[in-house]
């Protein structure tokens, strides 16, 4: 005897109406044969037999309303049987769907999951570390060339590393970041793509899934909105969805944030967008040493990395240690200026504005500590909280909009982790809540600046 149960015909269905029987007692039925019509809250659906046999009983009358899912509605006898559905049903976890409905007893995981804040990121990547030993020769280099050198060094080190993007090869890079790479590595490893962000981002992720280590350059991150589905849905999530089988070791990089008078579509900061997403590592360096060391670490990292550069810094010269294999660990903020009166957090270009603000403030007797976040996911809260516990005041600075921004996240976490240490409300400096204007005066009014950081610090220090 095989029991036929009232089926669930949608993810949410709990009961339905048995609109019509299409078979009667004594009928011989075949797998796939439509035996009944059932009305759900959305539609009328046909029910097909799974097993063959002869209908020995119809237990729910045609027209019955509100028949609960898994009620026995008919019985079959004879024929080739697979195990009776009733027997199968007996093994399901109590309380409904296998996924575990609330109150469903056995189906609901009982153990408390580990704290997400402790588990959100990989351990910092090692390498040679970033401590500059005394006597190390420092050389001057532009941010642009530091990034180029990082890619070249990693391409020499690992034949699976390749660069692709618009104008990266023959044109030498739209911003000349990939200058001379084609000559050294050839067109197989330095690949000019058509203007096709969605397509080449997905292609890059597919190549990463096959074990290559792509560096995908977006001419700017503004254009990566065409590709964001592949970055998030494919690169960031597939490791989890595959139970750890499918890896995407890939770096997406390019200039992010406002350039100069290029209008709203070309002037957006995506820091908070990508740092929202578990599965991604998000890096936004300020100076050349960090850009080089972090990009090298990013290329070696087995996870998908979003690497946010700043066009306005590409031509800036910084000092960088002249060592063979300079690596900076992912996931560690850097105290760029020690101080005792207020903590200023910033990343990317805003680090420069924060450092200048600190100089101004020092002249007025306010001693600011400046923390360069460097990695936005995982966020180095330990360094930030330790600083706030010392200074008791927090100002965050970022180029993006305020709502749901990086500063909002830092303020929220500091508020919960160091509430008793705060002597003033944590305060954010960010772009005004409007698309970025073209006119020079409006653009300057919209963007955060040294002056705005100074003003915010004075507000939280009550000066």
């Amino acid at each position, binding site marked *: 005897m095989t029991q036929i149960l009232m089926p669930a015909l949608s993810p949410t269905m709990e009961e339905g109406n048995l609109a019509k029987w299409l078979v009667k007692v004594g009928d011989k039925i075949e797998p796939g044969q439509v035996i009944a019509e059932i009305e759900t809250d959305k539609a009328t659906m046909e029910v097909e037999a799974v097993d063959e046999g002869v209908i020995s009983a119809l237990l729910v009358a045609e027209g019955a309303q509100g028949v609960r899912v898994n009620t026995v509605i008919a019985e079959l006898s004879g024929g080739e049987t697979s195990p009776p559905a009733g027997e199968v049903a007996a*093994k399901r976890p109590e309380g409904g769907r296998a996924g575990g409905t609330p109150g469903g007893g056995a189906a609901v995981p009982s153990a*408390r999951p580990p704290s997400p804040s402790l588990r959100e990121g990989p351990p910092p990547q090692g390498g040679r570390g970033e401590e500059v030993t005394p006597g190390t020769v420092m050389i001057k280099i532009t941010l642009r060339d530091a990034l180029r050198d990082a890619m070249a060094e990693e391409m020499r080190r690992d034949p699976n590393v390749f660069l692709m993007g618009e104008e990266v090869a023959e044109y030498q890079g739209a911003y000349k970041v990939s200058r001379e790479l084609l000559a050294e590595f050839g067109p197989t490893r330095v690949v000019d793509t058509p203007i096709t962000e969605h397509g080449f981002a997905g292609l890059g992720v597919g190549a990463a899934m096959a074990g290559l280590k792509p560096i995908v350059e977006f001419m700017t991150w503004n254009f990566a909105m065409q590709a964001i589905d592949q970055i998030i849905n494919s690169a960031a999530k597939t*490791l989890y969805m595959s139970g750890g*089988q499918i890896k995407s070791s890939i770096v997406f990089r390019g200039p992010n944030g406002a350039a100069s008078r290029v209008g709203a579509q070309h002037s957006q900061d995506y820091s908070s967008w990508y740092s929202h997403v578990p599965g991604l590592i998000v890096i936004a360096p300020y100076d050349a040493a960090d850009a080089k060391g972090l990009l090298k670490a990013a290329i070696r990292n087995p996870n998908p990395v979003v690497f946010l550069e700043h066009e306005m810094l590409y031509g800036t010269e910084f000092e960088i240690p002249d060592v063979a294999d300079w690596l900076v660990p992912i996931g560690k903020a850097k105290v760029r200026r020690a101080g005792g009166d207020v903590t200023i957090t910033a990343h990317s270009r805003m680090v420069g504005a924060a450092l200048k603000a600190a100089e101004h403030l020092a002249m007025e007797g306010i001693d600011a500590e400046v923390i360069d976040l460097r990695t936005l996911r995982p966020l180095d809260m330990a360094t930030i909280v330790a600083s706030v516990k010392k200074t008791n005041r927090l100002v965050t600075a970022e180029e993006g909009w305020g709502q749901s921004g990086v500063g909002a996240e830092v303020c929220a976490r500091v508020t919960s982790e160091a509430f008793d240490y705060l002597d003033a409300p944590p305060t954010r400096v960010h772009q005004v809540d409007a698309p970025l204007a073209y006119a020079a005066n409006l653009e300057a009014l919209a963007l955060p600046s040294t002056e705005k950081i100074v003003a915010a610090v004075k507000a939280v220090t009550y000066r």
Partner: protein
Amino acid sequence: MGQTATRANGASEDASKDDLLRFYRDMLLIRRFEERAGQLYGMGLIGGFCHLYIGQEAVVIGMQAALKPGDQVITAYRDHGHMLAAGMDPNAIMAELTGRRDGCSKGKGGSMHMFSTEKAFYGGHGIVGAQVSLGTGLAFANRYRRDGKICLTYFGDGAANQGQVYESFNMASLWKLPVVYIVENNQYAMGTSIQRSSSETHLHKRGISFNIPGEEVDGMDVVAVREAGLRAAEHARSGEGPVLLELKTYRYRGHSMSDPAKYRSKEEVEEMKTRHDPIEHVKKLLIDAGHASEESLKEIDREIRAVVTASAEFAQSSPEPDARELMTDVYL
């Protein structure tokens, strides 16, 4: 390869007894597996979305027969058949459907997100069209390594209207990537017929402006599929670039379990089931040629039912994932 449709007429006569018996068995496994999945869904043991492959079995079984070990396969969310064709364990697939620890994604992926690096099956993707770019990337890796592998990249008639499909076609043709694109044209993108969604309904022509040769194939005839698959695989493997196969097929069930499929007539579905069923087609070839009897085929059915029954039992006895799995596999 021509741009015009060529039906592999008479291809069925080219298959040996062993081929036909294997096709019969492999297609029947998919059908019985899917029927059982539908049943478990009805019992609340499978949740969320569940897209069944019933009716389309000849497509993956025919195409798989054109592959060499190591060749990759990637598809969208109607993926159970592709995984069975790739040789993945029915127990692990069914246990993933029930969201259990022994599922091939540890219960964290579900119907639409299963993978097997061992069988070179790369998913299992839920965003319509995304797998086309990804599959092109797998082929890019093959080309980069010059390892002689090809990638079969499946998508549906619905995905055929996504922009990234054509971005991928362009790059694949430009760089002569070893990829075979397979449109499983089951004629309905969820509830929208191809006539209502596509200005050019002959989807094998969609590669013309990228210089990708296309061919229309009877996707209900497993032997014709294999023949077309062999030609396409040879083309892609030889370094001549991608091929686009349009496999005309039909799904008997709704788009997903909760779709009553009222957008097509019962007569249309009945016509496909009774006159074009891919399994019945092979059954007839086997019996007409004297390769098998009703009874011997019934015995194969019994064996397959036992495999499927075992998978359903396995999928229910496997425990739910440990709560500790919640935060694993987020990062490496």
